């Protein structure tokens, strides 16, 4: 490659990087400004004095700690449960021998990815309120498991497809039954895949807004997206608290993405359904 082309390529890569990071930079800088400075000219691209006031307000006045805890509990439990359930369903789909049945099941799973989620809101709401299950974090957790289970299963299946069946057959000849060979041979081999499913589910659940808005009414049960939504008032948005809230809401997915990026990308390209 000529030097000119090299410079061109590096410039293009740098532009992409700047474009990707600029909005995050701006929201973080805003959250570290004194609230007066946010609304004063000329705009500063670095705070004249770094202030954590917005964060203090967020956690004292706006109770953000509770929302964070709710989001963390719901996301961790639901993502973990989804991982376990899809481990089994994905394995079964990968190893079942009946082709027609298998294809129908897969089609039924893909179908759930196509429907607009809002169409099920009304019936779901009446159904769950009949059983007094609204306004409960446990209900939300179950709904979230359901929300990600189809895609998790598809992902898990594609991971198990790549593990040769001969390994299990060998272990069964050695006297393992199917459950033993599953836990001793197959699951340990798919640990990266399971990490991908967990991170995938976690990110999607952590970010979910509309189900939570519909099924949670009490302030002490709100998750972070619902809380952020409640910061929007008719008078507009106070960007000091909002920017701090956004930064805090980004942190967990940022950590997960940094660690599991490789697996998530592998999962995304294998499953290829969720955007």
């Amino acid at each position, binding site marked *: 490659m000529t030097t000119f082309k090299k410079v061109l*390529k590096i410039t293009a*890569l740098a532009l*992409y*990087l700047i474009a*990707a990071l*600029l*909005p*995050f930079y*701006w929201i973080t800088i805003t959250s570290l400004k004194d609230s007066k400075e946010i609304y004063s000219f000329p705009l500063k691209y670095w705070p004249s004095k770094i202030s954590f006031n917005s964060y203090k307000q967020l956690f004292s006045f706006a109770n953000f700690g509770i929302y964070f805890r709710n989001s963390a509990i719901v996301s961790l439990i639901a993502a973990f449960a989804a991982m376990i*359930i*899809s481990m*089994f*369903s994905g*394995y*079964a789909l990968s*190893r*079942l021998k009946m082709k027609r049945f298998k294809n129908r*099941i897969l089609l039924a*799973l*893909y179908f*759930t990815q196509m*429907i*607009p989620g*809002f*169409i*099920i*809101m*009304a*019936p779901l709401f009446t*159904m769950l309120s009949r059983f007094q299950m609204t306004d409960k974090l446990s209900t939300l957790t179950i709904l979230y*498991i*359901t929300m990600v*289970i*189809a895609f998790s299963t598809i992902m898990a299946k594609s991971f198990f497809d790549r593990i040769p069946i001969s390994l299990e057959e060998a272990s069964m000849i050695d006297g393992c*039954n*199917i*459950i033993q060979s599953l836990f001793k041979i197959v699951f340990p081999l798919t640990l990266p895949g399971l990490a991908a499913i967990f991170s995938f589910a976690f990110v999607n659940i*952590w*970010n*979910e*807004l509309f189900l939570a808005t519909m099924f949670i009414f009490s302030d002490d049960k709100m998750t972070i*997206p619902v809380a*952020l*939504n409640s910061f929007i008032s008719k008078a507009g*948005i106070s*960007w000091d608290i909002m*920017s701090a809230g956004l930064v805090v*809401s*980004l942190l967990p*997915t*940022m950590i*997960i993405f940094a660690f599991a*990026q490789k697996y998530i*990308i592998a999962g*995304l*390209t294998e499953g*290829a*359904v*969720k*955007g």
Partner: protein
Amino acid sequence: MRNSQRKLFIMIIPAFVLLILFVYFPIVKGGVVAFQNYNLFDLTNVHFIGLDNFKAVITDRNFNFWRICLNTALWIFVSLFFQFVLGFGLALLMRKPFKGRGIYSALVFYPWAVSGFAIGLVWAWMFNGQFGMINDLLLRLGIINNNIGFLSDPKFAMMSVIIANVWYGVPFFAIMLLAALQSVPKELYEAAEIDGATKLRQLFDVTIPYIKPTIISTTLLRTMWIMNFPEIIYGMTGGGPANSTNILATLMINKIYKFYDYGQGAAIGFIIMSILFVYAFFYLRLTSSKEVVL
């Protein structure tokens, strides 16, 4: 072996119990709701009203239906075009390994992991009419003389939400296309080079035909997904000003969350689903691929 096949059946059950209870069952009921008078504040008065919900949606004076359909088409196709082109560009740039590619991809792909709603809010702040960074940068560069109300001026609002959506979707295409690019056998390029094909010719004659299945399935899936994706608009403009950014999906949210009219909401959902089915059918016909590589 028979015994273990039976065990496999049992393993599928938990996932499907959840899906049947909370997805398939409600969706059948949701189809019914589209033909009912169904308002959350008036639950004692639920009854069938035929196609009235559809009529009400189409003739609604406050939300001009055809304007919203046009907005939806703009929102989908302009976003999709730029997401694809820019994502493909990024994938091509990242194709050959370079120092720090791992960290680079973690940073440049990160927008994918953020919620659409949070993205909407972040971009609302970027585009803020007074204190937004974009206005400030454009002023400093001398491109504009006065602040633009990106989100309050109907002329600019659609463009602004689309820019945010493009920004959000580039990582998805880059990730998918990058994976596809890495599967193209090197020998094909070597052969093309011997034939004297330029890099550009190689792109159109080797690369694109080879990864065509991925291109078809990603653009198709992404279209469906963008159509059902109201979060960015919800966070940035809520569909305003003056309906200029309302799409079918945000209209549905308005009906459900503001007016509690589930009947009309479900009717819009029905319309969205029908459009998507017809679209998917013709898209696959036109691109003549019998099987989408999902």
